[in-house]
């Protein structure tokens, strides 16, 4: 898996958590994983299709999600499954939105699908055979996990356009 594809997601996740919580965050663990992903809490899976294909999973425990939701809304939020799902989805959307903005500006074109929330105990394989990178992000509200499996489908548009057509 190419680091140039992963780096925007790492940067975006770090920035989104730090800016949302108005506090420093730290990537405390980074590893490669070839197994089917087993979620730790509530996981939002976002699929990407286009020049780059793959999937990103953001995974938070319900307790961490509620703490983040409370921090962002400026008041204690009662624990409910809906709020946990909403929080995980919105954070995932922000991380992915910021990442794809960076990748899009680099010339990659792709479609991002709405997040699917997973709370069951089945593994989250996605449809790619590529290995995944797993990040643990330490925040003041607790740990968040990001699992990224991504590969190129096409060359970048600019590179592709630059290749002269054959007669």
């Amino acid at each position: 898996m190419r680091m140039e594809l992963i780096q925007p997601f790492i940067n975006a996740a770090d920035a989104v958590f730090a800016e949302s919580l108005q506090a420093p965050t730290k990537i405390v663990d980074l590893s490669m994983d070839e197994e089917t992903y087993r979620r730790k809490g509530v996981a939002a899976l976002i699929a990407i299709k286009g020049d780059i294909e793959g999937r990103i999973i953001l995974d938070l425990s319900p307790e961490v999600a509620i703490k983040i939701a409370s921090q962002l809304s400026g008041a204690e939020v009662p624990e409910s499954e809906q709020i946990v799902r909403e929080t995980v989805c919105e954070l995932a959307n922000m991380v992915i939105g910021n990442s794809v903005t960076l990748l899009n500006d680099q010339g990659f074109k792709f479609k991002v699908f709405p997040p699917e929330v997973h709370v069951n105990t089945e593994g989250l394989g996605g449809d790619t055979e590529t290995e995944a990178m797993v990040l643990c992000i330490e925040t003041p509200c607790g740990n968040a996990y990001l699992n990224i499996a991504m590969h190129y489908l096409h060359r970048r548009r600019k590179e592709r356009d630059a290749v002269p057509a054959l007669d």
Partner: protein
Amino acid sequence: MQQFAALLRKDNKPVRYLVVDDSVFARKNLIKMIEMFGGEVAGEAGDGLTAIAEYNRTKPDVVLMDITMPQMEGIEAVERIVRQHADARIVMVSSVGYQENILAALQKGAKHFVQKPVKPEVLYEILRYVLGDDPNAVGAPAVLAGEQRS
């Protein structure tokens, strides 16, 4: 917590906002900022179609509009609102901030764009700008005269 001078209409009443986002969580976050700016929530919507109906019902001073939503996306809702209300002030609020999206929204009549996660100080400056773009309408003089940020 950072404090902001109230953004007021010309008649010294609070600026009224319509907040449009399919995420309740995101709406709450924006509403918290609106309250920090001394504003008032005129309405909320979770999709573009409801946003149009709420706009017609509440006639807000400013709309904060997400892009990716079910039923009708934000950019289409902007186009329809601006077609009926040429003076509508709509600020797009989205996590996807690439140029095509921004250009499409501005071409349809949005006044500005802010990327999520929204920083209060960034949104404040954008609202000041958007409210101040028409001296005959709500905003600018009262805002600028009362500027005192700590």
